[in-house]
């Protein structure tokens, strides 16, 4: 606590601090429930501190317009070093009073709001006890605020450019939504071409097939998108706004170093291998295909023929392949299998198409219509309890227990979508955890589905989980939305202020804090054998503080020294 010379009032006494204590009447809610004057009197006569001057006042309600002006004026005229406001919940008005402090030269972190409404006057009917409680809370607040230290926002320069990993439809969509004069996009694709899986898909909506090709053209023509084919990501270090990335070309092992502010992971997914499920046994020569190979046939030569070159006269479309093994429904197979049924019907109108499914999952906009059309077209839908195939012979059990056997010219399997092979490796690289199904773990399933616990790394498309083409593109645009609104060229990023710091003198680098930090905000400085907090990434939760036996950390604004003052008061 730096010494503080009294400014104008001529007192020669050196004062450590001058604390303004303002109690809000809040109409009847506080004034009507406690003996406010007794509280003010007791507070003014507080002799806890010799070298601290307390100015104690009350006011009608401080959160009103006039109230705020009054408080601002009081801070300026009295030259307070600390401010305590006895009022309502910080969740309502902490930011109101902090912005008042910001208008004066009182650091907003040398102020504290004490909740004597929700936690005292509204819940204690006995007036005398409520008065005592309010007084005790405020007294504790004064003791705590004197232990608080100034904190400042530390704006951070950012690099607005973006690295997109994966050149499939989601990667391309993100790149196109983000690229601009003042924002370059580095699009890295491990294979030798763009388009990913979706290049073979003719899409559910009319014309969606051409969309993929159009996207590929726009990406190659966009001067703000630098394309790296046959390239993989070697190392990634840094945080939102400041990532340093090393790319390695697979052709000549040449490495390129780039800087980016955000990373969009669009590495797609693979299909479940039907052989891994003991329901389906078939050999290479059997007329059994996965849905993707049929899609390739239809989008390639425009028709799906048997190996013999003949067109099949009977086709079995089997849904939910691998669903039990993976324990999730991929949500999109029903839609595209009905689309394939339509293609087969167009190919040979009198073809007999039978779809075997465990559940029909039709959440998309026009799924039900597609189902009604298929049924009208004469496609047979059979809901099954169990199914197994040998080559093109299908044996199944209906919901009513009836067993059936049928053989077909061709069998098409719709396998579940599962994480792509290099997911684990990339997850380590980006320090992003995986969820129980093996996909990248989003930081919050509902309020932030594209973000990850490493802020600045976003997961889009089927790398996040099974979904269709248009949903994949919406996830890509959502990540673009977050980046466009947070990484603004020329503007700075303001990270959390109430972060944790590690005191080098106490830390022996044991790594307890480093291991428990969800956001990867702590790294090890091996040369000094200690752990260090990256204040740009820390969210101030204090989990690291809780893990350290020697108290070598200091969670700013919530240090143990400060909390002990509140505890002392509570136990007085």
């Amino acid at each position, binding site marked *: 606590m730096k010494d503080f010379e009294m400014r104008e009032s001529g007192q020669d006494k050196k004062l450590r601090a001058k604390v303004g204590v303002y109690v809000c009447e809040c109409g009847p809610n506080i004034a009507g429930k406690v003996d406010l004057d007794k509280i003010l009197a007791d507070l003014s006569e507080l002799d806890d501190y010799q070298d601290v001057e307390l100015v104690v006042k009350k006011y009608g309600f401080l959160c009103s317009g006039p109230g705020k002006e009054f408080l601002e004026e009081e801070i300026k005229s009295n030259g307070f070093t600390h401010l305590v406001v006895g009022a309502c919940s910080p969740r309502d008005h902490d930011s109101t009073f902090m912005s008042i402090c910001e208008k004066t030269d009182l650091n907003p972190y040398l102020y504290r709001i004490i909740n004597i409404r929700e936690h005292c006057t509204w819940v204690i009917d006995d007036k005398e006890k409520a008065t005592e409680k309010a007084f005790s809370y405020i007294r504790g607040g004064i003791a705590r605020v004197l232990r608080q230290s100034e904190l400042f926002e530390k704006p951070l320069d950012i690099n607005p450019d973006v690295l997109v990993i994966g050149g499939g439809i989601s990667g391309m969509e993100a790149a196109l939504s983000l690229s601009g004069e003042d924002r370059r996009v580095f699009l890295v694709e491990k294979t030798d071409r763009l388009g990913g899986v979706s290049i073979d898909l003719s899409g559910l909506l009319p014309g969606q097939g051409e969309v993929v090709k159009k996207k590929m053209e726009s990406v190659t023509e966009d001067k703000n998108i630098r394309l790296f084919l046959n390239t993989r990501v070697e190392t990634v270090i840094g945080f939102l706004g400041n990532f340093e990335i090393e790319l390695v070309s697979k052709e000549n092992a040449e490495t390129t170093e780039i800087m980016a502010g955000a990373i969009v992971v669009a590495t797609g997914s693979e299909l479940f291998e039907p052989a891994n499920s003991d329901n389906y046994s078939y050999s290479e020569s059997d007329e059994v295909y996965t849905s993707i190979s049929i899609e390739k046939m239809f989008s390639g030569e425009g028709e799906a023929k048997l190996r013999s070159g003949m067109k099949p006269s009977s086709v079995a479309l089997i849904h939910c392949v691998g669903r039990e093994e993976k324990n999730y429904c991929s949500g999109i197979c029903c839609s595209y299998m009905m689309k394939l049924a339509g293609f087969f019907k167009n190919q040979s109108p009198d073809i007999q198409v039978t779809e075997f499914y465990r559940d029909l999952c039709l959440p998309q906009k026009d799924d039900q219509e597609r189902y009604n059309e298929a049924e009208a077209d004469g496609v047979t839908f059979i809901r099954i309890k169990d199914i197994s195939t040998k080559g093109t012979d299908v044996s199944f059990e209906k919901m009513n227990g009836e067993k059936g056997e049928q053989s077909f010219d061709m069998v098409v399997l719709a396998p579940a979508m599962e994480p792509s092979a290099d997911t684990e490796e990339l997850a380590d690289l980006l320090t992003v955890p995986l969820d129980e199904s093996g996909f990248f773990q989003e930081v919050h399933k509902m309020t932030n589905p594209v973000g990850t616990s490493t802020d600045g790394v976003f997961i889009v498309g089927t790398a996040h989980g099974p979904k269709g083409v248009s949903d994949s593109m919406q996830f890509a645009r959502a990540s673009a939305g977050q980046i466009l609104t947070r990484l603004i060229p020329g503007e700075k990023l303001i990270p959390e202020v109430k972060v944790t710091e590690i005191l080098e003198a*106490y830390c*022996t680098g*044991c790594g307890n804090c480093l291991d428990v930090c969800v956001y990867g905000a702590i790294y090890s400085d091996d040369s000094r054998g200690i752990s260090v907090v990256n204040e740009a990434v820390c969210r101030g939760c204090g989990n690291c503080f809780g893990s350290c*036996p020697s108290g070598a950390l200091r969670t700013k604004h919530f240090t143990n020294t400060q909390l*002990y003052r509140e505890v002392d008061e509570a136990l*007085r």
Partner: protein
Amino acid sequence: MTDTERKGAVLPVAKEPGDTVLDFLRMAMTKEAADAVILPMKVPSGDSYAWILMNDISLLDDAVPIVPTMPVQGAKALRSLTRKGPGNLKVIAVMRPCEIRAAMELSKLGQVHSENLILATYDCPGAVQLQKYVDDPAGGDERFSGMLKKGNPDDSAKSVCHYCENFSIFDSDIHFGYLGLSEKEVLLVPGSGKGTEFLEELGLDLKKDLSSWEKGIEEIRADRVKTRKNSFEETEIQLRDIDGLLSVFANCIGCHNCQSACPICYCRLCYFDSETAEQDPDALITAAEKRGGISLPVDRIMFHTGRMAHMSLSCVSCGQCSDACPVSIPVADVFSYVADQTQNTFEYIAGLNDGDPLPLRQFRKAELPGVHELVKDADAEVPSHE
């Protein structure tokens, strides 16, 4: 612990097991499988031992690998050598199982880097209590060789040794086994991949069947377990209530020797010595008014409960805290009892099954239902969220 199909090697027999160990180390150094060894050596005054890192093979002649007492916990020696990194020398350290177990805990805590260390242990019959040994070194040596023969500690040994179950372990890199064997045979058992590689590199064939030795060890362990139960029951009675705790630590003088002697207390500055732990004088005075008085220095008892919370999950009950206590409080018995309780709360044993991460650095989504008041309704046994 015992792994039936585990195999070992037989070392050529020398006078005493310790000499057999020294021969093995000389062979390892001459074959350049190791650049140096860490072994205890008698101090010039002859009444104690010190850990010496020896590169010069001739020093081995004065080394005493199977040492009667434990002045400095071996793990502390390994920490001071490798805290800033593994170093490029390949070193064999021969220590008691509780010392190597403590070193393994310290490696999880980033204090020991064991990449270039071969951690060797030996069957430990117990260790003579340091003060008793310093007072009468010759008597100590004699008592110790008696313990080696019997395979069990006598009354000169530390109290923790009487109920030590992990006196012979398979989790170090290599382990010298000899307790319970009839003739002066010494077996060499690899405990880790690194250990097996090291022994194969030395050309030892690992074919010896260990079942008879293991049976002997199990017999010793069986009655150690009984003694352990009795000791814990006694300690529990001692700590029956708050006065119990007070009486155990009544004459603690707050010197924190137990903390500085403990290998697991790795903090650079203990919280209880830090500025944050110092309390406000006014708060203390008000507390004194309310209670009629408070004892000073303030955290005398809280220090011990705090240390229990901080380190009991990694406590290997090596007994150093009791040895270090100037007012001979049975700190080790209390801490071993607490460690036994806390470690099995998390199904964790300090220093064994090396891969096990420290309990407080991991969690399961649904666990420890008893620790928190149940969710939503008191009667719902399985909390709705987990």
